[in-house]
């Protein structure tokens, strides 16, 4: 990358995310495409932009130590090319992955779980524990960001609104009105994605990102203060924890009913109905946690940035060891 402008690099990364999402559609991975589009082209771009606004968009130095890096990269790529030369060809139906384990998902999941979207069946039931791990990862990131970025409440109460315009809305009436009429539709779409994951692409994670995007849009248009009034940061934290607990409690209930962890058959008398109920609740848990963590992270960054601009957040505690 020869570009020195970090803003341009971020935009390129965003385009890359979008392109890979379209590639995933071409590869039949619609759920993955949905997620990659919302993450690669959405949330990660947003976060990068916020960070660049703190750190400055210009890179100062030319790159260095390219030779060691080149050596590592060439070695790794040679190994990879060597290793992949034995692999089954692209699209070949007789590759091992299409003949072991996966056929059961394709052939039997309709009888066992009765959810048309097989990807949802796999991640919410067959491999529900992985997805639980995923929710915990997201929660960990949220708490980690809070631990790093949270500005002490004392510093916040002292902070005054900035001199510059507080939100776009004061300047742009049109944007404000258009956005206001858009919110119901965004929420409706998010709800659709949340509850339609059984039948088509979508599910808790994607819905959570859309929900979060709506809130972030609100914060961008009406100012951070207005947004934190709508939902208090402390409430968001609790909700994020609640999502994880909701997911886990499905497992606890199945345990108490005499099944193994996440064995939804034990939720209700009818196993199929149990599977449906289990998937519904865990997707809800995923949705809640993802929404809250995304909002938490974005608010955390923005509040920190504001405090940084006012030079109140940084206490001169460094250098004590």
């Amino acid at each position, binding site marked *: *990358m020869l570009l020195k402008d970090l803003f341009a690099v971020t935009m390129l990364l965003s385009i890359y995310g979008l392109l890979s999402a379209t590639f995933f559609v071409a590869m039949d*991975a619609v759920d993955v495409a949905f997620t990659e589009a919302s993450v*690669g082209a959405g949330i990660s771009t947003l976060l990068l932009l916020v960070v660049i606004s703190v750190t400055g968009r210009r*890179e100062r130095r030319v790159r260095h130590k390219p030779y060691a890096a080149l050596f590592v990269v060439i070695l790794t790529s040679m190994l990879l090319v060597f290793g992949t030369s034995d*692999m089954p060809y*692209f699209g070949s139906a007789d590759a091992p992955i299409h003949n072991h384990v996966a056929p059961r998902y394709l052939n039997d999941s309709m009888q066992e779980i009765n959810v048309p979207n097989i990807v949802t069946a796999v991640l919410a039931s067959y491999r529900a524990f992985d997805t639980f791990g995923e929710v915990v990862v997201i929660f960990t990131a949220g708490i980690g960001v809070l631990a*790093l970025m949270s500005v002490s409440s004392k510093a916040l109460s002292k902070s005054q609104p900035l001199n510059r315009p507080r939100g776009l809305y004061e300047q742009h009436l049109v944007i404000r009105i258009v956005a206001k009429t858009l919110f119901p539709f965004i929420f409706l779409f998010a709800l659709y994605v949340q509850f339609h994951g059984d039948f088509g692409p979508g599910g808790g994670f994607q819905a959570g990102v859309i929900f979060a995007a709506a809130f972030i849009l609100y914060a961008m248009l009406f100012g951070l203060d207005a947004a934190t009034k709508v939902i208090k940061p402390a409430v968001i934290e609790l909700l994020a924890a609640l999502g994880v607990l909701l997911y886990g409690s499905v497992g606890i209930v199945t345990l108490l009913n005499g099944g193994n962890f996440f064995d939804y058959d034990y939720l209700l008398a009818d196993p199929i109905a149990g599977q449906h109920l289990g998937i519904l609740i865990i997707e809800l848990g995923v949705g809640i946690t993802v929404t809250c963590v995304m909002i938490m992270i974005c608010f955390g960054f923005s509040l920190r*940035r504001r405090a940084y601009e006012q030079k109140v957040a940084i206490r001169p505690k460094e250098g004590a060891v």
Partner: protein
Amino acid sequence: MFIGLANTWVAILLMMIGLYIVIAQGNLIKKIIGLTLFQTSVFIFYISMAKVEGGTAPIFSSDISIYSNPLPHALILTAIVVGISTTALALSLIVRIKEAYGTIEEEEIQGLDEEQD
């Protein structure tokens, strides 16, 4: 052979570009961008293996008989989430580093640390 593995090798090329950026670049943000590139390319590698010739998206329908493999899709969904979590944490570290050191260039940070020794 070249057609059959073209997808994989393009993914490898992209991975290596990402890895190179992570190692060679001194700017902390660019390192994270490289890391994202690296991870996304690994996702492409995974998704490529799931494809079956003539198959469709693994959403059940009575008039379709060939589906692509749903398992890598489920795995990569998890991996994408892990990736964004890592990115978010890394970016918050960068903000703190900027506040504490006043720079986000690797060389300058190391220089500041050595000064203190």
